[in-house]
């Protein structure tokens, strides 16, 4: 299987389309009314221009390519002190806009290829992937621990290794191994069972989607697991009748939908398989009138948009041939695949919920601070950044913050603890599960 993963040098033309104007440094919308907000977690924390948004990262990329910035520990650290949240990308208007996260990750790939990257803690994570096929150093058998309550209740979850089902619930490593995020898979599976869905999991045979490896620049490790997963998906389609892959993890969802599409075999392998995030799946059912809620949740709730289900799903319209404007011109952005409204619609539909919006939302959402390998590489900063986001949530008057990403879920929880906040962090599925009426009336 061939992969089209760009090297930094291949992106040189894009890198030189940045004018260093600095529009990327803050979130701004004319309105009226105009809105302003800090958008770059690294810029907010470290301040120096090199850390600031894409302007700073492009400077590093230019210096690395020209040889004016030889590798050293501080440069390496600065390249990894970025959550790759794409907040800066959302502000940029120039031709390199569609490639900004790619440029940042290409620098990391170059660092890994040249033997200087990633950061020491990332190396542990990558070693774990090699040893255990997950970044948490979790033995394979632990991957299914979350399913025990279902077995005990006499409602075991189908094992797709053994029997067919049209839906694969791709659990993801964080939900399976990180006990603080375990509510994500349990609530998801509970919802699916209540809805009477015929779904299954890969159990101990599920392996990491590879998102983390890709984010920290180890494209070889990414390719290894992604290739295996694509082969599994093909087998599931051909042998088990799988037509839909549902994930409750923003990282897995982004990886399968976007990173896997860099494979030469993607279209062939994925033909006939739809990849859906749980929030989107439930939202569709809700719109079709197939979700029934009972009781109410008298909570004040705000919603945090994960980067991986938001702006990372932007589709950029580029004038590749120069037919409309000029070769390589950035023309527009299509946000139709970004999951902005689906979770909000669901929250607003739950009886009793008072929904409150944070100032920075949707495409200008402020990253939780956990992405791009930061939670592993720079845990203290990730927690500190999460606490800023928690505070923003609390400033709305909300008592609970809801999201659709186990990574955000975990990190926001850590951020809340850091500032002694009483705010509770939930995955959307937890709330839906609490009020959803099953097809059998339960």
């Amino acid at each position, binding site marked *: 299987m061939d992969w089209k993963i760009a090297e930094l040098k291949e992106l040189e033309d894009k890198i030189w389309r940045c004018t260093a104007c600095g529009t990327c440094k803050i979130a701004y919308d004319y309105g009226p009314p105009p809105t302003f907000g800090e958008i770059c977690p690294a810029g907010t924390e470290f301040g120096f221009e090199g850390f600031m948004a894409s302007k700073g990262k492009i400077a590093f990329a230019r210096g690395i390519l020209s040889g004016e*910035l030889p590798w050293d520990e501080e440069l390496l650290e600065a390249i990894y002190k970025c959550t790759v949240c794409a907040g800066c990308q959302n502000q940029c208007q120039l031709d390199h806009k569609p490639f900004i996260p790619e440029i940042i990750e290409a620098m990391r790939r170059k660092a890994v290829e040249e033997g200087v990257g990633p950061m020491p803690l990332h190396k542990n994570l990558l070693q774990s992937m090699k040893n255990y096929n997950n970044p948490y150093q979790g033995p394979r058998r632990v991957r299914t621990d979350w399913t025990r309550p279902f077995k005990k209740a006499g409602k075991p979850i189908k094992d797709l290794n053994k029997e067919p089902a049209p839906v694969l619930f791709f659990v993801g490593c964080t939900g399976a191994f990180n006990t603080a995020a375990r509510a994500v898979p349990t609530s998801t599976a509970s919802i699916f069972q209540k809805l009477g869905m015929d779904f299954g999991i890969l159990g101990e045979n599920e392996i990491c989607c590879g998102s983390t490896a890709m984010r920290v620049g180890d494209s070889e490790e990414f390719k290894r697991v992604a290739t295996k997963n694509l082969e599994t998906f093909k087998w599931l389609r051909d042998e088990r009748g799988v037509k839909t892959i549902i994930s409750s993890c923003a990282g897995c969802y982004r990886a399968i939908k976007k990173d896997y599409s860099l494979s030469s075999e993607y279209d062939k392998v994925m033909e006939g398989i739809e990849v859906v995030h749980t929030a989107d799946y439930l939202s569709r059912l809700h719109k079709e009138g197939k979700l029934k809620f009972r009781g109410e949740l008298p909570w004040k709730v705000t919603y945090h948009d994960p980067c991986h289900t938001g702006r990372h799903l932007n589709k950029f319209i580029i004038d590749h041939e120069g037919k409309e404007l000029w070769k390589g011109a950035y023309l527009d952005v299509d946000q139709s695949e970004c999951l902005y409204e689906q979770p909000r619609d669901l929250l607003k539909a739950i009886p009793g919920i008072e929904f409150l919006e944070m100032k920075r939302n949707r495409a200008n959402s402020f990253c939780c601070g956990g992405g791009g390998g930061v939670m592993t590489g720079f845990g203290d900063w990730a927690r500190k950044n999460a606490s800023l986001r928690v505070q923003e949530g609390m400033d709305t008057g909300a008592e609970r913050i809801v999201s659709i990403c186990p990574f955000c879920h975990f990190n926001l929880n850590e951020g809340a603890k850091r500032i002694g906040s009483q705010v509770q962090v939930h995955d959307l599925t937890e709330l839906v599960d609490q009020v959803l009426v099953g097809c059998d009336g339960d």
Partner: protein
Amino acid sequence: MSELSSPQKEPVFAATDVGKVDSVLRELSKIVGESNCTAARHIRYAYSYDLSFVKPKLPDYVVMAETVEQIQGLLRFANKEKIPVVPYTAGTNIGGLTIPERGGILLDLKKMNKIVDIDPEAHVAVIEPGVSHAKLADALYKHKLRFGWPVGPPSASVLACAVSHGIGGLNARYGLNSQEITSMEVVLPTGELVRVGSCAIRHDAWHSCLPLPQLDGLFKGWLGSTGVVTKIGISVHPIPPLLKVFTVSCDNVEDIYSYMLNLSNYEICDDLTAVSWWLAQVPIPYPFKPKPDGAPEWFSFATTTSWTEKEREARTEIWETVFEEEQKKKTSIKRTVYPEEALRGRTQLPSQVVGSTKNYCKQGGAGISWPGTFTPAKVWAPVYNKWREILIGHNLSPSVRMSMYRGVHYGMLRAMIPFNKQNAEETENARRAIVECLKVDLEAGGIPYKPPIDFANEINQRASPGYLDLLRRVKKFLDPNDIMNPGKLGI
């Protein structure tokens, strides 16, 4: 200091030995804290270039200050050690103004970003240097107030634009953004804190620089070479609800000038601007391409705002009168529909689209610079015609803008010139063309603003000896060791 791409002629602060760097860093760290200062090459590198043709140069240190006291401490130290200091807010100018000519300390002020006060009754705001146009626009709008937002990036500094005589979208109504400054707080190069304007007499009175002697002039237009401005008061203005933009086109610069002169007499516009065909293109063609036959060479948009329909009708009546008068002169003037997106870019400020230089650099390869001048309106036409010849001769587009300032017949005349920064020859070609244009303008009585050193040298060659001597004496008086942004004034 470290040079990136060309030999340095000036004597420089040479922080080349590790011991010296370490000892300076230790002192800086005592003043601003360890996390706010660095000598790391990659951090310095990100401050070494901007959009312009000015050659990249590295500072030796980068320092972020969070308080006025830290700036005082820093300048006392730098003055004692004779280390250059370059104040920096966003680095979005297109004249290399924050590229350190002689290395030293680059003082990044982005963390000083407080809006100290907005007085909606007095129409005065007090801001620190790190306050961006976007942040102030957000805050002012809550009071239904506005400022003269420039066409720069929303992340650029309000204070830096104003003290550098930057222009904004309300120039025809209220004047330059520097004319909106009502008071100032400044740390002198020797570390003393001074105030000028009303806030010098009473600490919380920021309403006016007048009627006191205008000492604010010691810090405006000096390109950060006389001190670090830590706060300014600015006039802010109510937002009239009704917008009307009048757009025309002409076949030549003489006709568009005639229209602008006529209309400006009535002082009904917030902004009265004309752009050449090349500047109206998205992007500006690079290299030069000829204008299609039959396309007008000039477009003008006259932005007006009104409180009532009747007021708007009155402005329209005046505009119609001017238009008819111009038609009677048998000029080539025509009513024109300006493209909607372009018009939004001119009226919905601050703008990410315009501010990000989207229109300017896309084909150019990331470089943009200018001859940006304040020029008497009566010579706009002959200067433009010569610029056109020079720029086309260098295979560059004559992408020129002319804007009339408040109540006077002079204004901004500038050409935004994209070029390919990856290529040294193309960059030098653009620099030569721009300097040639500048000479033409200077000979016609224009003066460049936010000038790169090449421009400063041209100004100084033509300046009266008394002016230059006074400039040197004032600079020496305020900055005896020439530490503040040295070299930028060309003196």
